[in-house]
């Protein structure tokens, strides 16, 4: 059987990052192909290539044997490729029918939108997937599952041959997931080629016919589901890749600094408890959405936990704001550098001194010489590359912005530093510098917590790894058990390997 859609030698680079490197992918009519890989394996990038959002730097896409190009999202959808995303892009203030037909609504002969045809078409499409929704309802009045059905109907409204489902079950309940499986069966019966992206092994084994595995932007393997076991797939996903060298360091773990117990949030996490020691690097691993960042932001005073206690040096400390967290010696290097980390528009030195202003100023008045001194001291330690300390942070590369954010926190002389995906999207050189620096900090007696979705990083840097899944701690991994397989299995909710 020939594939409906076939990708060969697709590469895509971003400044400092090679997101895809000569990958291949085949999709067959009436079959579900599961695309499997760790966070950062290149799954989202390939979806964007397929839907015309990104242009590949190299490689070919063929559909039905003919080479095609998707210079725009419209071109991809005209060719019959459609995607249902993790966060579905729909419009709350529009009706079901309007959402389904947005951008390609049926027209009357006067060129106006044919509302009746829209409604009838919407009902027909929805019935085709077994949904009976009133096409005139506003989307904001629907539940998440119904919205999903609308998204699927919208995807089908362009008469797609290829349907991409990017983690479609992430936000669904048990029953809804069941209905989605039935829907996938229906689409298969209609002869659609389906690309199914999921982290959940049980559902991959349940509905996929074929698999393709990516790792670090590279193609690892493909085949029929009946020929593989969970263990094989895990092995393919995590198998050691390009060797990253992590700094060697003496483990010199001191007394507890931070103790968290019974920490809960109404929606994001529940019953989180752990102890962090001086000189320790504690890794937090889990899938995207496992609640790791939310726990860290609660510890930093951004979100309010509903229950639970934090103790610092055995003293109960209630942290209600970031300034209280900083006063307690807890600082947080956020994942979203652009939005939460660096204040673009302000120069480097002002970014560095922002939380330390009480120290660098006298009676509320700034002392610029003091600020430059502090900024120089810490940016130098991090080997910041910039033209001057007066340069706008927004003009620096991602890696150097990250260094400014870290310098900002070190200047406050913290006891606990939380790094959330500290090397995400930064170049290899800066990555190594950040890693080396983390090791140095731990050696100096700082307690470090690192949230990371990169397995080599988590294993290479951490003394201990806490694995979270769906807002809870599911495993704490130390010593011999610190292997990729253990982490992946725990994060995906699989039984521990025998």
């Amino acid at each position, binding site marked *: 059987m020939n594939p409906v859609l076939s990708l060969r030698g697709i590469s895509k680079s971003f400044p400092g990052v090679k997101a895809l490197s000569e990958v291949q992918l085949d999709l067959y009519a009436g079959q579900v192909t599961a695309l499997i890989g760790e966070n950062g394996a290149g799954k989202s990038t390939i979806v964007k290539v397929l839907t015309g959002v990104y242009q590949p730097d190299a490689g070919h896409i063929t559909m039905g044997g003919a080479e095609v190009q998707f210079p725009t999202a419209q071109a991809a959808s005209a060719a019959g490729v459609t995607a249902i995303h993790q966060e579905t892009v729909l419009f709350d203030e529009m009706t079901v029918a309007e959402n389904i037909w947005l951008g390609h609504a049926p027209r009357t002969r006067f060129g106006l939108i044919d509302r009746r045809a829209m409604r009838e078409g919407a009902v027909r499409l929805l019935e085709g997937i077994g949904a009976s929704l009133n096409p005139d309802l506003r989307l904001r009045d629907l539940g998440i599952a119904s919205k999903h059905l609308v998204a699927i109907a919208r995807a089908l409204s362009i008469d797609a041959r290829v349907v991409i489902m990017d983690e479609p079950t992430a936000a669904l309940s048990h029953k809804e997931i069941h209905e989605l499986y039935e829907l996938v069966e229906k689409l298969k019966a209609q002869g659609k080629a389906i690309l199914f992206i999921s982290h959940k092994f049980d559902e991959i084994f349940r509905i996929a016919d074929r698999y393709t595995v990516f790792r670090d932007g590279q193609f690892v393997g493909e085949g029929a589901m009946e020929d593989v076991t969970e263990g094989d797939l895990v092995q393919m996903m995590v198998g050691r890749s390009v060797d990253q060298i992590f700094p060697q360091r003496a483990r010199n773990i001191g007394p507890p600094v931070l103790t968290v117990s019974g920490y809960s949030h109404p929606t994001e996490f529940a019953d989180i408890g752990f102890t962090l020691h001086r000189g320790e690097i504690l890794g937090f691993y889990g899938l995207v959405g496992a609640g790791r960042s939310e726990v860290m932001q609660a510890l930093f005073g951004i979100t309010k936990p509903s229950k639970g206690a934090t103790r610092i040096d055995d003293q109960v400390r209630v942290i209600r704001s*970031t*300034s209280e967290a900083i006063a307690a010696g807890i600082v947080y290097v956020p994942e979203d550098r652009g939005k*939460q980390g660096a*204040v673009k528009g302000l120069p480097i*030195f002002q970014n560095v001194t922002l*939380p330390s202003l009480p120290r660098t100023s006298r009676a509320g*008045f700034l002392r610029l010489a003091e600020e430059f001194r502090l900024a*120089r001291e810490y940016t*130098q330690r991090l080997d910041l590359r910039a033209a001057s300390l007066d340069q706008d942070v927004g003009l620096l590369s991602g890696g150097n912005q990250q260094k400014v954010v870290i310098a900002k926190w070190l200047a406050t002389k913290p006891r606990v530093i939380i790094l959330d995906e500290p090397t995400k999207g930064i170049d290899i050189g800066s990555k190594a510098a950040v890693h080396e620096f983390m090791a140095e900090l731990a050696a100096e007696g700082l307690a470090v917590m690192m949230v990371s979705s990169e397995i080599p990083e988590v294993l290479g840097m951490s003394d201990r790894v806490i694995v979270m899944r769906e807002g809870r701690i599911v495993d704490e991994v130390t010593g011999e058990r610190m292997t990729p397989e253990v982490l992946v299995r725990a994060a995906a909710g699989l039984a521990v390997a025998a």
Partner: protein
Amino acid sequence: MTRSPRILPDRLQSPAARALRSWEAILVAVAIAVFVTNSFASPYFLNAWNLSDATFNFTEKALIAFAMAMLIIAGDIDLSVASIIALASTAMGVAMAAGADTPVLVLVGIGTGLLCGVINGALVAGMGLPSIVVTIGTMSLFRGIAYIVLGDKAFTGYPASFKFFGQGYVWWVISFELALFAVMAVVYYLLLHRTSFGRAVFAIGNNATAAQFSGIRVARVRFILFLLTGVMSGIAAVCLTSRLGSTRPSIATGWELEVVTMVVLGGVSILGGSGSIPGVVLAALIMGMVTFGFGLLNVPGIVMSIFLGVLLIGVIALPRLLRRR
């Protein structure tokens, strides 16, 4: 990996070199041009007393503009300032009618401004409502109260000692208002450019989320900024009421836009994040001189406002046009 510490210079450009290329430099040029044009256009322009008189048409607005500049830099806006003047002036009128003397009147005026600032600040910074909506609401509310109290009547007959704030002179041609303008310019310059509070204002205007993630008490800073515009509006109400010697509910109508114009002309980004007090001072002088010059030439008020509008758009568009080369 070898670590070769690199020494970053503090600055590549000296503050003086930077000032030469700044927005303020353009404003200085415009101010000189307006001054020279005026002195050629009217023989009465270059007269100390005339110039002194001319300052009254911007000093009160400029007092508010200083606080407004900080608020806009932080990414908010207060459109209720003119209505605060109306309410504060009315409150002073009521106090006067009840027999209050000058010190009490001043306290009532400034206190009313402070109270209005508290209301705006609580709604915006406390409850997280958008400032433009809140202050459009309080703009109607505050002036509405003034109308209810006064109807089509007016308070007149303020005590003689109260006249000093709007009509008194500190030394020679230097009026109390002009002196207050100069003092406040220095105070606000120090507050915005020389204190950690001012730094927090810039940080919030550029990225409020990152500022919060850096331990800045964002809500508190925003609340204080609304207090400041309220208080400055109260002070402006004292000066204006004293100068006019009466209170009508229509007092200071439309001033909110003139204040915002002054701030934006002064180089404050309407999107927040950048701007300076010297820029606002220069903008106030330019607007004052233009108004005065046109007055000497008997140009009708409407032409004046057309000119100011064109000036505003022109000065804002200029750097963008230059950059496009």
